[in-house]
Every structure is written in structure tokens, then in C-alpha cells.
């Protein structure tokens, strides 16, 4: 809980909710007749409406990207390291929009929302949504906010995939796309980890085929396991060694299966906290969206052909110890962009923080990110004046 709001924070923020009644056709062939998107904004939109930046969230993210909801909040929004006055995404210069994606569990329409067809939670009946569907819904939000073109669409991990998809699907509506700690598609290993996470949820006796809401329960153990395995992939081996080593909680072996090593304690804690705050059906949907993501698929599996659609400038960043989406995966995007002659810049940040690094306060990373965004701000102001 902050005693006072830090000077470089966007301060106290309140989410807004918007109803959309124009049906959204989904990639899976189904459609959502109506849906709600919850979002937050920081900073102010300039007269030319040219300084808007869209933040796309990753697997477990949401609309609360920066600032505090109340003075009782233990922590600020999930990307407070990068968003705020004077920060890399400078809210003195940009109008920042962060939303919760469809299928989410933080206020936007998702599996835990009520299905108007039967008055019960959607649960497993909620349609499968993809990165492309999210981008289409985000475009509707842009329309509603009167934003013709984003100064930048920015995201890390699964969020970076949305930024890339924006650049492909709406080339005239994106000036810059920042694709951080991301990949042009998942590897077999990535999908394998997601499948372990899903199976742990699907086989939890409290899952009830996804209708656990009706049984007033939820697949707690499944979510804990899913998060534990996921969390391992977010950290690097170096960071784990540095943080926990082989440290024992009680200083000696107990020769049993209770928590003994610090790393076990940490993972269980992470899993438990997550299980209390996240919906299992949403987790299933988000991991499938990750697995399905492959923009090249629409272009005969030719990534270059997909990227030929783009017109924006790209910033791609990766982290040395990220093994979930390793630097080589970012370089696949960079190399393809160079081959098709698109404007792209790339930096690889040296850190031991693994995949999670994109959320962490790493000075070299935020300096480079800030330098790039500074240029975006200058361009946007030139265009506006």
C-alpha cells in the first residue's frame, strides 16, 4: 500500500466499461452478439487524437496496467514500471489505453460472465477467442474512443503478438508496433507447457466440465499447478539459482513431501495467490489463443508475406535469459521484417530475469524503451502541429 502516490505514478485510476452491441465475428466461426470491454486510460488525448497508445496484456494481465485503484492497494498496475509521467511510456506525452481482453476474467466479457442465452455463466460455452479476435475487438474500442490511428500498439509476450497482429490486420491504424519478449508463433515446447497447464485444470475434480460456477467451487489445485508450471517458464535458471539456490526453509531435511526447499514454497505461494484471482476457463482460453497464434498461417505459412501487409515502424526487444520466448524468436520477426524492407529496430537486453524481465525495472531496458518512445512522441507532436 503506498503511503503516498509516487511522483512518477499515474496516481489513482478508475476503470471504465463499454458495451458493444455490434456482433463480433470470431475466427472460430462463432460470434459474440454483444460484449463488454473494461479499460483504463492514463494521460490525455491531444487535439489531433494522434498520441494514443494501446497496451495489450499477456496471459494473466488485464486493464489495470498502471497506478492504483485505492490507497489500500498493495501494488500498482502490472506495467507500472513502464507507464507513468516521465517513464518509458510517458503519460505526460501519451494517452495510454489498457484493456482487459474478451475471454478475460477482470471485467470484460468472458467465461465467468453471464450468457444471455440461458442466464448462467458461459463457462465452457464461451467461444474460443484468438489474437486476431482480440485485435478486432480492440479496433472497435479505438473507434469508440475516436482514435483513428494508434501512435503505438505495445505489448510483451502474448501482448506483443497482439501488437504484431495489429500491424498486419490494420496497417493504416498503427504508427509503431512494439513487440517485446514475444515470438511469431509458439514452439512445440511452448505448446507442451501450455498443455500441461490445461490438463492440470481439466482433470481437477472441481472443474466440473468448466461449470464449476454452478457448484460454487473452482479447480483450485488445477490452477495452482498450471501457474506453478507456467511460472517456472517465466524465470531463468540463473534467477532461480540466485533467488533460492537449494535453500531450505527449516535449514534441514525432513525426509517428507511437505515444502522443504525455498523454491517449492515460492512456487506454491505463487500458485495459490494466482488461483484465488484468476478464472480457470479464462486460463484455458488464453493458453489456446497462444497456441493458435501464427500470423503466417493466413499467408501459406510465409511470415514474410504476412509482414508485407504492415506499414508501421517496429520496435522488437528480447531478453538474454528468456527461454520461453528466447531472443532467437524475436530475431525471426526482425529478420523477416528486414527481408521485406520494413522499418525495424531491435535490442537484446542482458538480464537474468528470464521471460518476466519485460515487466521488471531494468534500467538498460527502460532506457532503450524510453528512447524509442521519445522518438514516437516527437513524431506524433510534429504531425499534430
Amino acid at each position: 500500500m503506498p503511503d503516498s502516490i509516487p511522483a512518477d505514478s499515474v496516481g489513482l485510476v478508475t476503470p471504465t466499461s463499454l458495451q458493444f452491441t455490434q456482433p463480433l465475428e470470431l475466427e472460430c466461426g462463432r460470434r459474440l452478439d454483444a460484449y463488454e470491454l473494461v479499460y483504463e486510460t492514463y494521460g490525455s488525448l491531444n487535439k489531433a487524437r494522434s498520441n494514443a497508445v494501446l497496451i495489450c496484456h499477456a496471459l494473466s494481465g488485464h486493464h489495470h496496467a498502471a497506478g492504483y485503484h485505492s490507497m489500500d492497494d498493495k501494488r500498482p498496475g502490472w506495467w507500472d514500471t513502464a507507464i507513468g509521467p516521465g517513464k518509458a511510456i510517458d503519460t505526460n506525452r501519451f494517452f495510454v489505453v489498457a484493456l482487459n481482453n474478451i475471454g478475460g476474467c477482470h471485467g470484460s466479457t468472458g467465461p465467468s460472465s453471464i450468457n444471455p442465452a440461458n442466464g448462467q455463466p458461459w463457462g465452457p460455452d464461451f467461444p474460443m477467442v484468438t489474437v486476431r479476435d482480440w485485435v478486432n475487438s480492440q479496433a472497435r474500442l479505438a473507434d469508440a474512443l475516436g482514435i483513428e490511428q494508434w501512435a503505438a500498439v505495445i505489448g510483451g509476450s502474448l501482448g506483443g503478438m497482439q501488437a504484431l497482429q495489429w500491424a498486419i490486420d490494420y496497417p493504416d491504424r498503427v504508427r509503431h508496433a512494439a513487440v517485446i519478449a514475444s515470438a511469431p508463433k509458439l514452439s512445440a515446447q511452448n505448446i507442451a507447457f501450455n498443455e500441461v497447464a490445461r490438463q492440470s485444470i481439466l482433470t481437477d475434480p472441481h472443474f466440473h466440465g468448466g461449470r464449476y460456477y454452478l457448484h460454487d467451487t473452482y479447480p483450485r489445485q488445477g490452477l495452482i499447478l498450471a501457474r506453478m508450471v507456467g511460472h517456472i517458464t517465466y524465470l531463468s535458471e540463473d534467477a532461480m539459482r540466485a533467488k533460492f539456490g537449494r535453500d531450505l526453509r527449516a535449514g534441514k531435511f525432513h525426509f517428507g513431501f511437505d515444502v522443504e526447499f525455498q523454491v517449492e514454497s515460492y512456487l506454491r505461494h505463487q500458485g495459490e495467490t494466482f488461483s484465488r484471482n484468476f478464472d480457470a476457463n479464462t486460463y484455458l482460453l488464453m493458453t489456446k489463443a497462444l497456441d493458435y497464434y501464427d500470423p503466417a498461417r493466413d499467408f501459406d505459412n510465409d511470415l514474410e508475406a504476412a509482414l508485407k501487409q504492415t506499414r508501421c515502424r517496429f520496435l522488437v526487444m528480447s531478453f538474454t535469459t528468456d527461454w520461453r520466448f528466447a531472443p532467437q524468436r524475436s530475431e525471426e520477426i526482425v529478420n523477416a521484417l528486414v527481408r521485406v524492407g520494413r522499418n525495424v529496430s531491435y535490442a537484446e537486453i542482458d538480464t537474468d530475469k528470464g521471460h518476466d524481465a519485460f515487466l521488471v525495472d531494468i534500467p538498460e531496458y527502460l532506457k532503450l524503451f524510453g528512447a524509442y518512445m521519445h522518438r514516437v512522441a516527437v513524431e506524433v507532436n510534429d504531425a499534430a502541429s
Partner: protein
Amino acid sequence: MLRPDLEIIRTWIPDDTRVLDLGCGDGQLLENLRDTRNVHGYGLEIDQDNIAACFERGVNVIEQDIDEGLGNIQDKRFDYVVMTQALQAVHRPDLVLSEMLRVGREAIVTFPNFGHWKVRGYLFFKGRMPVSPTLPHQWYNTPNIHLCTVNDFEAHCRERGYRILQAMVVDRHHEIGPMTRAMPNLFGEIALFRVTR
């Protein structure tokens, strides 16, 4: 104001071309070429302060170590591949030059001339590794691990069958005096070459 050696290179590059700048530094050359010659370019750089400077100039820059090759870039992707004051600092200048001519139609390189009379005199009279304003490091900490002379470079081009399209040898103020013109390998401090295969 563009750095003087970059100003010379700028005059060698025609309008509307595609340029790759190896070790592009703070992106001055690429920015200038973009603004004055409508050049579409990318820089490769490993220093993150320089990368940040390129970001602020809106110059495309990719973090990549030249010593690890240019294998990610397809043949003849660029019209010009430029490398200023870095040939002597790479692990294998011959391989880098060959890669430059694979990914580009022409290569432009600049390097300090180790054949300059002061360098020769330093070694001859002092018996120590030369230290000068163009070569300010000590033998043990110099990044310049593959120094060569103008004659060495020309011989290398002959051996490999590279054609020298343009050459200029200047003093450290990037000027050409009568002496540098007459005996470039003795009086030139910085050499600039444009070559093709």
C-alpha cells in the same frame, strides 16, 4: 554537422538506395542519408548507448555483433554496405569484407592507415607499438587487432578479385594534401575505399 569521413561517404552514395551500416554508432550517417538522399537503411550496432541514440533519431538499428556474421541477411539485399573505422577491430576482416560483398552490391570501408610515416617512425625510432591520435590505444588494450596499410588492403582486394571503384586517403582532418595524393600509403592517415566483387 556530419563527421568529416561520413560526409565523404555520403557523397559516394546515390539517392534512393538501400544501405546497411555495420557498426553504425549513433546513427548520424543513416539519419543524414535518410534525410538528404532518401536512403532506406539499417544499422547494426552492439553498444546500447549508441542503440538508444539511433532510436531517438528514428534510425533503424539492430543489435547484432558483426563478428557473428551476417548470415541472417539475404544476398544482395543492399546497394551499399558501409563500415567505418571498424575493419581493423573485427576478428576476421577478410570474412567480414566478403560478407559485405555478399549482402551488398558494393562495400564502403574506412580504416586507419598503419603505413603512415609517423606510425613507421614511432616503431622504427622508439621500438614501441605506435600510439597516435588516430591510434590512441596501448598494445594490450587496443580494439584494433587487425591493423593494415593502404597497400595491404589493395593487395587483399587484388588477391580476392575485388574491384576498387573509388579510393581516397586523407589526413586526420579528412583533408587531402599534395603529399597524401603523391604517396598515400606514407602520408595518408585514414583510408576510404569503395569496392565491389
